[in-house]
């Protein structure tokens, strides 16, 4: 299950999806909006995506993870639109027979999301707003 949504994400849905009688471990990751960033008081985040491609790239992360680790099932849901402090913007769940694979694939997924999935966040802070990553001009590699 790899999708984007405009609704709050339900962790139980992901965990149910990856539940598997062959699995002894489920690792999950939740990205939440935190109240500060680089010294700014953050009011909230606002996410935008290139939807068709974002879902495709999330699925590709799943495929890549399955090539690298023995995992049972994987789910990623990324939320779009405004996400308030403490709310979740992304949730990942991975099940596997043994815990090493679940942890590794879960960590891999969040790193890849931050590198390669066409989703952008605008940070709304006290005194302004900014598209994160845009000013830094960090080089990104072509895949």
């Amino acid at each position, binding site marked *: 299950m790899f999708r984007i949504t405009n609704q709050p994400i339900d962790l139980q849905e992901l965990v149910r999806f990856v539940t598997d009688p062959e699995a002894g471990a489920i690792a999950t990751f939740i990205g939440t909006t935190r109240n500060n960033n680089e010294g700014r008081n953050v009011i909230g985040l606002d996410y*935008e995506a290139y939807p068709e491609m974002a879902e495709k790239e999330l699925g590709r992360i799943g495929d890549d993870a399955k090539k690298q680790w023995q995992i049972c099932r994987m789910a990623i849901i990324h939320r779009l639109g405004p996400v308030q402090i403490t709310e979740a913007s992304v949730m990942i769940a991975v099940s596997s027979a043994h815990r090493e694979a679940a942890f590794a694939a879960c960590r891999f997924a969040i790193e890849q999301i*931050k590198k*390669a999935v066409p989703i*952008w966040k605008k940070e709304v802070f006290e005194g302004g707003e900014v*598209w994160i990553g845009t000013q830094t*001009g960090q080089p990104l590699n072509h895949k």
Partner: protein
Amino acid sequence: MKIKVKFFAILRERAGTAEVTKEIKEGSTVGDLWQALQQEYPKLNVPGIRLLYAVNQNYVKPENQLSDQDEVVFIPPVSGG
């Protein structure tokens, strides 16, 4: 040929539109299209920005040649998660 261009995030705000259809000559590359768009929308030129390029929802290099009806997106630094 006709190319559908979508803008997201900072480029959407700079262009003032989310989508345009652009007429461009046969054999043009993604890089050529970007040059042409910057003429039309000078604000797209964000100082220091590093873009990726997608054609029909796949990442490509700027040398990639376009085909009629392609969907092109210029991808600002992603910041999901």
